[in-house]
């Protein structure tokens, strides 16, 4: 059975801290891994990773994929209260109907 596991499930930090969110997966025919941010509304896309070792970066957020060890991390440096959200990891296993396999998410709370 395909699995996408995120850890931790929740995390509370103070502004300025650096956080690392984890996503491990066990899927057949891996194609890509995606990260989404969900505030009190619909998830919004952050990154898509397809190759091992290549970091994707956007401002204070960065992510990297390890296809050998089957995991990805999402780093957020100098956290701000606006980073408070659920962060979702999803894997595309290249199925013919284009579905993604989502983890349960990490609830990040950043206190001022």
């Amino acid at each position, binding site marked *: 059975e395909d699995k996408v596991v995120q850890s931790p499930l929740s995390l509370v930090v103070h502004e300025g801290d650096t956080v690392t969110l984890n996503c491990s997966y066990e899927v057949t025919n891996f194609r890509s891994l995606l990260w989404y941010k969900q505030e009190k509304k*619909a*998830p919004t896309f952050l990154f898509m990773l397809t190759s091992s070792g290549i970091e994707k970066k956007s401002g204070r957020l960065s992510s990297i994929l390890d296809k050998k060890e089957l995991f990805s991390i999402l780093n957020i440096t100098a956290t701000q209260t606006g980073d408070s959200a659920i962060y979702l990891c999803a894997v595309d296993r290249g199925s013919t*109907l284009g579905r993604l396999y989502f983890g349960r998410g990490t609830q990040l709370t950043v206190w001022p």
Partner: protein
Amino acid sequence: DAGITQSPRYKITETGRQVTLMCHQTWSHSYMFWYRQDLGHGLRLIYYSAAADITDKGEVPDGYVVSRSKTENFPLTLESATRSQTSVYFCASRLGLGAYEQYFGPGTRLTVT
């Protein structure tokens, strides 16, 4: 550019009633999806579709019906609503396979009393 829209945004209905949630996208994306999101369960896939008239079940399809007669629309029907179907429902679409992300609609909050 409306993107992907859902209606209604909020709905309260009674147990046993039929309810249809609408999803419309203006991008001509081939792939469309319905998820429900509940505390403790994350996003769960209900149904998905690769094109008009091609649909398949996700993890939690029981009690739901979908149709896709036109590429841009993907309605989700609860045939006889139950309290366990109280949830937030997200529609999503994707242009194609490969290096394409999935875009989510704004969601419909459904309460079944």
